[in-house]
């Protein structure tokens, strides 16, 4: 990291209180210490980074303000971090955007985090960038979502609301790397790899839209997306004797809908989306994902004070399955026609909500794999929060999404002071 930038920080901090008094600027932030260690480590065959998945300290600064007459504003949130586990220092601009509101129109331009859809840690129509490596190694939940430089326009009317988001530069989802995680890799012998991200062309601008309105007391929404699969596909130069892999992000269009509202003493959620794989419409290319219909149903309720339980059923139904099976090269693991997943979230608050016990679990009956996140967190004071938790993975096969992470169980600790 640029040292001069670090030096400007204390100076900035000195200037801030004076500016804050004018009421034009609001500044806050936090210091986070976050550590994670592998559990049940193997003596041999360790990933290059060793037992520690995270050893980082972060200073987060948030600045925001609004124009005296209203209408315009800005928000910026930047992390300055040092990660001992990866011997890395960095500046991470999490969000930095400008806002303008007039009448029934809201505009927002810059690096921003977008979230929509009704799933709980399951995303169908939310096709915005995510950092699964952060989730799997025990960073706080906010780090699952990453900002994207984008332009958002929202139009509100009594009938419906419309959001349109344009993202010029594609950013892939971040997955753990073999540097610190044990992962399934069907082409592990091929070390010559090139990543080919969609070029920064006008034709590659990602577009996402949502039209929403209440329907009979439920929140109803329609979604559309045009862009790219955010998880990579690997293209070998030869299927039988590959020497080079190109990591690509094939074109994708998604059309979906969601519905959420009160029912049966709790909150009921439904969401579905059709994933149209634009570069493999026939479904015959084994290296590009086939088109799929994804859907989920969820129910959440609070049977007793300060306790909430939520369950979800999620499915991915592959179109043109017989063509996929016929085209699949020997030796590559076969996906199911209907991949299913169940999730359960339990949350209990104790002692005036200063303690929180939570468990999130994924379990797939078709992949026969699972992922558990038990966590205990405590508000030591209003400012200081400490959390201890674990990421526990397992499965019958090492080629499934969660099963491949079997040997990466880890325990994490995070402490955060907010000011």
């Amino acid at each position, binding site marked *: 990291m640029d040292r001069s930038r670090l030096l400007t920080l204390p100076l900035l901090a000195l200037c801030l209180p004076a500016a804050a008094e004018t009421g034009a600027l609001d500044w806050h932030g936090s210091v986070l210490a976050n550590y994670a260690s592998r559990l049940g480590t193997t003596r041999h065959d360790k990933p290059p980074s060793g037992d520690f998945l995270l050893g980082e300290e972060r200073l987060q600064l948030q600045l925001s303000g609004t124009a005296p007459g209203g209408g315009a504003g800005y928000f910026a949130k930047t992390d300055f971090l040092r990660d001992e586990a990866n011997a890395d220092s960095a500046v991470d601009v999490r969000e930095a955007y400008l806002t303008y509101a007039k009448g029934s129109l809201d505009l927002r331009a810059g690096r921003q985090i977008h979230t929509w859809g009704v799933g709980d840690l399951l995303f169908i129509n939310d096709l915005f960038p995510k950092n699964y490596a952060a989730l799997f190694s025990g960073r706080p939940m906010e780090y699952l*979502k990453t900002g994207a430089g984008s332009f958002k326009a929202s139009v509100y009317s*009594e009938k419906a609301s419309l959001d349109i988001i344009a993202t010029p530069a594609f950013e892939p989802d971040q997955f753990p790397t073999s540097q610190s995680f044990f992962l399934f890799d069907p082409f592990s012998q091929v070390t010559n790899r090139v990543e080919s991200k969609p070029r920064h062309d006008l034709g590659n601008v990602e577009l996402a839209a949502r039209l929403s309105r209440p329907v009979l007391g439920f929140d109803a929404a329609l979604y559309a997306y045009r862009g790219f699969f955010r998880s990579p596909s690997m293209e070998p130069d030869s299927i039988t004797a590959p020497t080079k892999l190109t990591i690509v992000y094939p074109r994708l269009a998604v059309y979906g809908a969601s519905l959420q*509202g*009160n029912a049966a003493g709790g909150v009921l959620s439904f969401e579905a989306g059709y994933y149209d794989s634009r570069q493999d419409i026939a479904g015959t290319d084994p290296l590009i994902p086939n088109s799929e219909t994804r859907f989920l149903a969820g129910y959440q309720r609070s049977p007793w004070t*300060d306790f*909430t339980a939520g369950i979800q059923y999620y499915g991915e139904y592959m179109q043109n399955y017989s063509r996929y099976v016929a085209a699949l090269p020997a030796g590559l693991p076969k996906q199911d026609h209907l991949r299913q997943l169940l999730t359960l979230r339990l949350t209990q*608050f104790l002692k*005036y*909500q200063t303690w929180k016990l939570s468990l999130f679990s994924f379990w797939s009956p078709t992949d026969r794999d699972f992922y558990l996140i038990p966590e205990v967190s405590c508000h030591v004071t*209003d400012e200081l929060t400490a959390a201890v938790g674990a990421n526990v993975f397992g499965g019958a096969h090492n080629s499934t999404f969660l099963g491949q992470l079997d040997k990466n169980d880890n325990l994490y600790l995070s402490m955060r002071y907010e000011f």
Partner: protein
Amino acid sequence: MTKTILQLMIAAALLTPASAAPATAQPMDAAGIVGKMQQAFFSPGDSFRARIKMTLKDVSGGERFRELTMLRVNMPGGDQKYFMYFHAPGDVRRMAFLVYKYAAKESDRWLFIPALNLVQRIAAKDSQSSFVGSDFSYEDVSGRNIGSDTHKLLREEELGGKPCYVVESMPKAAAAYKRKVSWIDKTTFMPLREEYYDVQDQLFREFSAEEIKEIDGIPTAMKRTMKNVKSGHQTVVEFSEAKYRLALKAEDFSERALRNPPGSWIK
């Protein structure tokens, strides 16, 4: 002080004739008294805004704070919409909470989590759950449906020099308490004191309205306390910058406000 309160009472009687039943009038039925109390306490004025400071005190003297801005607008038919924006502490800063409260069915509730830019619906059947870790439940903040309890007028007596109706309310279905006894000011219909009894008929929770001030002609509880008698934990709620009859539109209580709260609302 007494004179001020007397002036307030007279002013209130003049300004709100509907709720100004003189102490000597015919005894009202208990449900009618509770109805007037709910009107006076939870929904006076067409709309309302206040900055709220909550102090959570534990028995060993430790204190925690919550600061928020609350807006309310009344809808036809007794429905209400609430919007709450949190200023502090840091872990809830910029969070916003939207409630559509219905007279006849469970509330709709949405929470905005700024770090994820996420609007999340919250399970509704937790009206007894603690409001942001305080001694107040969601129900204490926005009111309990009047038909959920049977009400009985126990007696009439003075509390702190003010003539009160003493009303007992017993939940028809299972609730956090077995019975509640309320001292309701005969003039302003404000609840001055409430006692909650558990299944063993032991007092476990006490509410008191310590400071009632007239704002825009409406008696308003500017300071109130809920104390857990058994644990010694208590929460003091103080209102400031209170204002009634604002130019708020019901349709502004929306997802847009959760994600981008209007500056004029949360200042």
